[in-house]
């Protein structure tokens, strides 16, 4: 099995390293590992996985949110938002870089997927931050990591999958995600403040200070925030007002974005067409990788590498703390190669009995799993947020990864804090 894992890893690295498109590298790796280590013909499996992962109601939210982001980006609404926010964030070290974190946190409350959060928020913030002279590594790092919160802050596709598979209450899981989500936001923002004070300001990586403004001017300037607030308010309102499900809310977002842009006088046929085709490109790119990842996941299911690795840990008879450390390591390593949901599906059936025996609360464990999955979104070579940002900026995955390392470590810290103080996750669901 060790050889199998190593060979599979090696193939993936060779293909990726030689510049094969990511989706094809995943497909190629899966193909070769099926051909070498199992008796199954890869062709039919590829076709049926590819088909199976290209349709689905829940998946429609992703292209819709991407389209919404393209409209906001092209119609100047993103620019307005920055001009409205800028005077308020002048004194906070790190200034507009916080928009990545706050924006992701807010958008995460609307959207259940981290790739969609990343693509939508990033389309608005990254070009603006770059224009304003912010440190590009910090801009990318905050975006890549904060947008993973899409999975933790409700609604969340990930928590739904976990809830369905383990028969835990989805509403309680959603409640449990709020505390840790806020904790991670806070950790990220504190880190950003610290970085700005110690390093960023000195290197001019935190943009140019806007001229000081009186409170009245600040407030007068804030009307520019209205359109974007109306948009987010409209989407959240449609979900909690019982008008739209979280999946439907994405299409609501597209329509609202068009209406608001139109009302603001920044919408025409050209913007409609350009935003639509840009959305087709990005959505196709991501969907193609999702299909490739699903084929790789199946190949892993057939070779049973992940479940056998989990069995090794199950057989070690560890104490709860050691078990959690070992599991975290295993999931982080697997998370380098598998995308989030598959990771959970492939290992839960082996690890859940251990977790129950070790006495972990299953709601708490769900939140823990989601944070680990969030981390796997920013670990190369298979990390969806990295892919989205590469699509956005054209920067190489390794550069992007380097920018996310501090935030990766902060998420580990969040897990440690949650282990020490389980109430961070469990207070809200228990108060329900």
């Amino acid at each position, binding site marked *: 099995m060790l050889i199998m894992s190593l060979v599979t890893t090696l193939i993936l690295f060779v293909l990726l390293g030689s*510049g094969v498109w990511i989706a094809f590298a995943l*497909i190629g790796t899966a193909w070769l590992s099926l051909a070498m280590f199992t008796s199954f013909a*890869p062709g039919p499996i590829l076709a049926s996985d590819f088909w199976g992962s290209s349709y689905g109601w829940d998946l429609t939210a992703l292209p819709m949110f991407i*389209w919404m982001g393209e409209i906001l980006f092209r119609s100047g609404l993103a620019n307005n938002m920055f001009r409205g926010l800028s005077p308020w964030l002048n004194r906070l070290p790190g200034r507009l870089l916080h928009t990545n974190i706050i924006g992701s946190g807010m958008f995460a409350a609307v959207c259940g997927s981290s790739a969609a959060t990343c693509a939508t928020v990033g389309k608005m913030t990254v070009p603006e931050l770059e224009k304003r002279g912010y440190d590009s590594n910090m801009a990318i790092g905050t975006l890549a990591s904060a947008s993973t919160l899409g999975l933790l802050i409700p609604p969340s596709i990930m928590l739904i999958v976990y809830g369905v598979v383990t028969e835990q209450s989805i509403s309680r899981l959603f409640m449990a995600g709020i505390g840790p989500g806020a904790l991670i936001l806070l950790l990220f923002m504190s880190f950003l403040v610290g970085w700005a004070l110690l390093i960023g300001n000195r290197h001019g990586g935190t943009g140019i200070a806007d001229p000081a403004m009186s409170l009245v001017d600040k407030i007068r300037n804030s009307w520019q925030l209205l359109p974007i607030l109306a948009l987010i308010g409209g989407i959240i309102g449609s979900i909690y007002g019982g008008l*739209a499900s979280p999946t439907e809310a994405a299409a609501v977002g597209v329509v609202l974005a068009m209406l608001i842009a139109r009302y603001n006088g920044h919408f025409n046929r050209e913007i409609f067409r350009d935003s639509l085709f840009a959305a087709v490109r990005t959505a196709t*790119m991501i969907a193609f*990788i999702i299909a490739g990842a699903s084929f790789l996941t199946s190949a892993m299911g057939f070779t049973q590498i992940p479940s056998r690795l989990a069995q090794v840990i199950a057989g070690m008879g560890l104490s709860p703390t050691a078990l959690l450390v070992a599991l975290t390591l295993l999931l982080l390593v697997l998370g380098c190669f598998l995308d989030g949901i598959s990771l959970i599906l492939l290992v839960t059936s082996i690890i859940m009995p251990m977790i129950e025996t070790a006495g972990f609360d299953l709601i708490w464990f769900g939140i823990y799993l989601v944070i680990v999955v969030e981390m796997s979104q920013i670990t190369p070579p298979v990390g969806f947020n990295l892919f989205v940002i590469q699509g956005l900026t*054209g920067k190489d995955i390794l550069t992007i990864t380097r920018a996310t390392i501090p935030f990766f470590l902060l998420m580990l810290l969040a897990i440690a804090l949650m282990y020490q103080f389980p109430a961070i996750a469990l207070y809200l669901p228990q108060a329900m």
Partner: protein
Amino acid sequence: MRFRLLKLYNLGAWGAALCMIAICGLVALQVLLRCVDGLLVLFGAARLGLGITGFSEIAAYLLVGATGLGLAYTFVHHAHIRVTLLVSRLPPAVRVWTEVFCLAVALSLTVALTYGLTQLIDESIEFQDVSSGFLSIPLWIPQTALMVGVGLLCLALIEALLTTLKTALTTPSRFHSDDADDSREESHN
């Protein structure tokens, strides 16, 4: 790189774009009907209870078109991402051969996928497979859309491979990959 069949790939993209619009319109209409009901209840009237039967089923299968038909278009716009950190440092004469390798890998997998999808469609027709929701949509329809999309990608890859091979055999030192500058231009437009 110039693609002779560019118009065909653009046609695919139009198909994908229409699917996107259809998904958005369908869902928005459904939500609108619910808004109407909400208003009626607010003013003390009874709900109309209108809904589009099977709208989520239709949307689910429209997604196949929205992301499948755009595959070739996305490829010729260099929007499929890859890791070029290592290969971009190679001299053009070597780089051109890694590019041939990449295209060959991609093409062979795409051919295998296209073939697999044709078999899938054959089976769906033979056994008259339909969707399991409200509408009994014959599955060969969205499957064919997917196969067309993958087939277009196949053509684009063949074109790219032939052009690159020609460069590799005639003027390897003049090879330059255009995806890096293309994506940068993308993020600024």
